[in-house]
């Protein structure tokens, strides 16, 4: 049985003309890329479009990948720029990226339709719900840090920021996430009573 190839080995195969190797790369990173896209798009269809677009762009520019960073870091930088472009194109109010009020609506909606199956909700459900209510930038940094196996420097590289800026943003994002989580849990407790 063939041992699991590294990203770089797969890239070499793709550049040598083996397109199946790219399918392996896509399979390996699709969940994470899609999750990042979801942080921006807030809808599965749009997120799939963004994620697909990212992989196509990455394929086109694969030869120019310098290999000075991890492939995932490079890929996530593509996701970030593509998602930002998508947001601008879609005109999901460019202001909304900085305007938390826009997300209050999403927040209220999700807490409204989830009341009925409160029993089935686990703590991770509330966590994911809280992440959905965060601003895209906060949600992206949290996801990259906890699920992307990326250091602060690598996150900075992907988002085009200094590592120190990422550190500050991560701290604030965690605080906001904690607040949302607490608020959702409190709201749920009230509903149950």
């Amino acid at each position: 049985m063939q041992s699991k190839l590294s990203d770089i080995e797969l890239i070499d195969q793709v550049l040598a003309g083996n397109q199946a190797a790219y399918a392996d790369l896509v399979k390996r990173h699709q969940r994470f890329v899609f999750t990042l896209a979801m942080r921006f798009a807030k809808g599965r269809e749009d997120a799939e479009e963004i994620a697909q677009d990212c992989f196509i762009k990455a394929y086109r520019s694969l030869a120019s990948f310098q290999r000075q960073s991890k492939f995932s870091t490079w890929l996530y930088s593509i996701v970030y720029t593509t998602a930002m472009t998508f947001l601008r194109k879609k005109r999901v109010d460019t202001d909304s990226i900085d305007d938390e009020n826009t997300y209050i609506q999403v927040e209220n909606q999700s807490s409204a339709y989830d009341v009925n199956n409160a029993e089935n909700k686990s703590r991770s459900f509330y966590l994911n719900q809280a992440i959905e209510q965060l601003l895209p930038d906060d949600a992206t940094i949290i996801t990259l840090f906890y699920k992307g196996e990326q250091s602060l420097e690598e996150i900075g590289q992907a988002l085009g920021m200094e590592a120190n800026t990422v550190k500050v943003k991560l701290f604030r994002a965690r605080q906001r996430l904690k607040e949302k989580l607490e608020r959702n849990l409190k709201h749920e407790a009230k509903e149950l009573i």
Partner: protein
Amino acid sequence: MNNIEETLWNYIDGNCTPDEQSVISTLIASDEAYRLKYQELLILNKEFETIELEEPSMAFTYNVIEAIRTEQAQVPLKAAINKRIILGIALFFVISLTGFLIYALSNMDWSGQGMPDLAAKVPVNFKVPDVSSHISKPLVEGFMFFDVVLALFLFDTYLRRKNISRQAN
């Protein structure tokens, strides 16, 4: 409080220097406020690690590869034309023109005064084919129309390529 939290997050993330780390360890052991906050953040950190990744549709990989294949299938409009064929055609014209030129130059009468007498050297039976009957107005118009369509097509291809490269960047 924010300061304590920030310090403790740095400690949990391992972003402290060894000196800072030992100072914070001592604080956690001795200061109740630090200890409680540390416990709280540890629980939160563990919880954040359980974030679930979203799953795209089953056909996602297939769709990506198909999109790449479709894109590649469109490219051969410029790439499928073998360069050797173009080179062969160019070579044919270069050789023909050079041949004609050499023939013309070798038949010129360089000894005479004024313009060299080329016509005098042309064989008597040589007859230039009469093509004027084939060149009609509709034919010229058709040719011009084809040229315009070709020019528009090439311009469109150029703009598309420019657009794709802009999107890729």
